[in-house]
C-alpha cells in the first residue's frame, strides 16, 4: 500500500517524469494508483525492443489470494490447475519449515495451521508464477515449437500447435505448467501478455492490494521495477542452480524458499 502510495506521491511531486500525467487521468484531489504501463497504449508496439521484469516482494505479501482469484477469473483456469499460486511458509522455533498452499491460496489463508506441534517463529507468503526464463527448459524441450520465447521475452504457448505431450511440464523446474483438462494442451502464466500489449498491468499485479507484485518495463527508466532492479537492494531468483535465468525476481525471499 505504502509503496504504491509513495510512488504516486512521487508522481504528484513530479519526481517521476511528468509525462505520466498523460497516461493516468488525475481528477481533482483524488489519488490514482498506477494501473497502466506507460508508453504502450496508443503507440506502435516494437516487439524487438522490449524488456519487462516482474518483482515479487515477499515482505509485502499478506496472503490474501487476490492474485490467485484474479488469475483464475482472467483465464477461467480449470479447478485444480494453477497459473499462479501463493505458498505459506511457517517457520517453527526448531527451524523446521512447514509449507502449504491449499487450493493454491485461492481461498486466501483464513486460519493459522493447527497441525504444527511447536511454537511458531513466523510465517510468510510466497507468490509463485511463471519465471519467464531467458534460458527456458520448457522451450528447449518442446518437440513441435509450440512453446517459444517471443522477441519481447515472453515464454508463450501456441495452443494451436501443442500436441499435449507434457514434456514441458516435466522440464519446468518451477512447476508452473499444467495440461489444461479441457483443451488438452499445455498452459501456463503469460504475465497477462494480452494485457501488457494493451498497456495494462498483469491481472495479479492490478489486484494486489499491497504492492507485493510489481511489473514494469526495463526500457522505462522511471518504472518501479527498473529502479529496484538497478538499485542496491538484494533480489534473488528461484532455483538459480538450474541456470534458467528468470526475469521474475524475489525481494526479501528467504533461503528456505524453493
Amino acid at each position: 500500500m505504502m509503496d504504491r502510495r509513495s510512488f504516486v506521491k512521487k508522481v504528484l511531486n513530479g519526481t517521476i517524469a511528468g509525462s505520466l500525467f498523460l497516461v493516468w487521468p488525475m481528477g481533482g484531489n483524488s489519488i490514482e494508483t498506477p494501473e497502466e504501463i506507460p508508453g504502450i497504449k496508443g503507440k506502435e508496439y516494437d516487439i524487438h525492443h522490449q524488456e519487462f521484469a516482474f518483482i515479487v516482494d515477499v515482505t509485502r505479501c499478506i496472503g490474501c489470494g487476490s492474485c490467485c482469484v484474479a488469475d483464475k477469473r482472467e483465464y477461467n483456469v480449470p479447478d485444480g490447475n494453477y497459473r499462479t499460486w501463493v505458498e505459506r511458509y511457517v517457520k517453527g522455533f526448531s527451524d523446521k519449515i512447514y509449507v502449504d498452499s491449499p487450493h493454491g491460496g485461492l481461498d486466501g489463508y483464513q486460519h493459522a495451521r493447527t497441525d504444527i506441534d511447536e511454537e511458531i517463529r513466523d510465517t510468510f507468503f510466497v507468490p509463485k508464477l511463471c519465471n519467464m526464463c531467458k534460458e527456458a527448459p520448457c522451450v528447449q524441450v518442446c518437440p513441435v515449437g509450440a512453446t517459444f520465447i517471443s522477441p519481447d521475452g515472453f515464454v508463450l504457448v501456441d495452443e494451436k500447435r501443442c500436441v499435449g505431450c507434457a514434456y514441458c511440464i516435466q522440464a519446468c523446474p518451477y512447476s508452473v505448467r499444467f495440461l489444461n483438462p479441457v483443451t488438452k494442451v499445455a498452459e501456463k502464466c503469460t504475465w497477462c501478455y494480452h494485457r501488457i500489449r494493451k498497456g495494462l498491468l498483469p491481472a495479479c499485479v492490478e489486484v494486489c492490494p499491497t504492492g507485493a507484485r510489481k511489473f514494469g518495463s526495463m526500457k522505462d527508466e522511471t518504472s518501479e521495477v527498473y529502479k529496484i532492479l538497478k538499485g542496491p537492494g538484494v533480489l534473488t531468483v528461484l532455483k538459480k542452480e538450474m541456470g534458467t535465468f528468470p526475469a521474475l525476481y524475489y525481494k526479501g525471499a528467504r533461503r528456505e524458499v524453493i
Partner: protein
Amino acid sequence: MDAAHSSAAMLVSNYVFPNDLHVHWSMMIVLYPYITGLVDGAFIIAALYYLFDVKSLRPVARFSLLFALAFLAIATLPLLLHLGRPERNFNMLLTPSPSSAMAGFGYIYAVSMGVVVFIILFVYREDLVELRATSKGWLQLLYRAMTFDSIDLSENARKLDQKIIRFLVGIGIPIAVVLHGYVGFIFGGVKANPTWSTPLMPVIFLFSACVSGISAIILAYIIIRKAKGRSIDHDCIKTCIKTLTLFFIMAFTFEMLEVFSHSYLKSGYHHMVEGLLNGPLASSFWLWQVKICSVIPLFVLGVMGIFTINKHIYNFTAAVVSAILLLQVLIMRWNVVIGGQLMSKSARGYTEFHPEWFDKEGILAVIIVMAIPFIILFVLSKIFPFWTPDNETNVK
C-alpha cells in the same frame, strides 16, 4: 548441517506444488520405453547372428527380427494414447524443434522401421520366392511385391543379399541404439528432475533394453516351440543366456551406480532421491526391482554359467529367469518414469499415483497395447515362417 536445508526439515511438510499433484507421464510412458527396449534387445540377437556370425543363434535369428518388427509396429501407439492432442501427432514431423531431444522421434522411428522391414525382406527372400510360386491371389501379389518381383536366386543374387543384410544390420545397430538411447536421454535431459537428470540414464536404458529384448526372445522361443511340440535348440538357448548374463550384469551395475552416485555426490536435491527410494518406492525399487528381480536372477544366471546343468532343467530355468528379467525391466521403467514424477519440484514432498482401469492410459489400455504385437506376430507367422527348415531335422 544447516537445519533449514537438512533433508528432515525439507520433507517435514510434505508440500507438493499444486500443479505437481497429477502424474502427467503415466503407464503409457512406462510402456513406450519398454516396447522400444524389447525391439532393441531382439534386434541385438539378430545382429549377433547376421553381422557378428554367432552361428548358434541361427534358430532364433529370423524370429527375433519378426519379433522386433511386431513390437516396433506398435511403438507409437502408447505415445498416441498419451498425447493430449493425438490428432496433431504429425506436428512432430512437420515442425520438429531443433533444440528438443524429443523432436527427432518421428524421423528416428521412421528410419528404424524401414531398416527392420528391409532386413526382414532380404533375410526371407529365398522363402518368399518359394512361397510366391505356391501362393495364389492377393497373397501372391504380396509375395511378388516383397520380393521386388524378382525370382532371381542365383549365386550372385544370394551373395548380394548377404552383403545387403550385413550392411543393413550394420547401420541398424546404431539406429537401434539411437532409438532407445534417445528414450533414455528424454529422461536424462530433464534437469528439473533429480532422479532423471543423469548422463547414466541412456546407458541404463540401453542395457536394460537389451536385457528385456533377449529375455523376451528366449521366453517366446521356448514357449512357442513347446506349444508346437517342437524341439528346443540347447546351444542357441545357451548362447542367448550367456549374452543375457553379460547385458544384465552391465544393466544392473549401471542401475546401482546411478543410486550410488546420487547418494555419494549428494548434489542438488539428492535428499529427494533418497527419500523417494526409501519412501514411496521402497517396495517397488528395493524389494521388487533390486532384490527379487535382480539379485535372484543374477544368482541363477551365475549358477547356469558356472555349473553343468541338465539340458531340460537348463532350458526351464532359462525360461523362468527370462520371465523374471522381463518383469525387472518393466518395474525399472515404472520406477524411473512414474517414480521420478512422484517427487514434487517443491523439493518438499511426494505425490501419489494410482493407476486407473478404464482410462485411455489405464490398465486395460496397457493390456490391449501389449496384446497387439502378439496378434501382429501371429499374422506375420502366416507370411514369414518363423523357423528355418533345418530345425525340423532336429526333432527327436
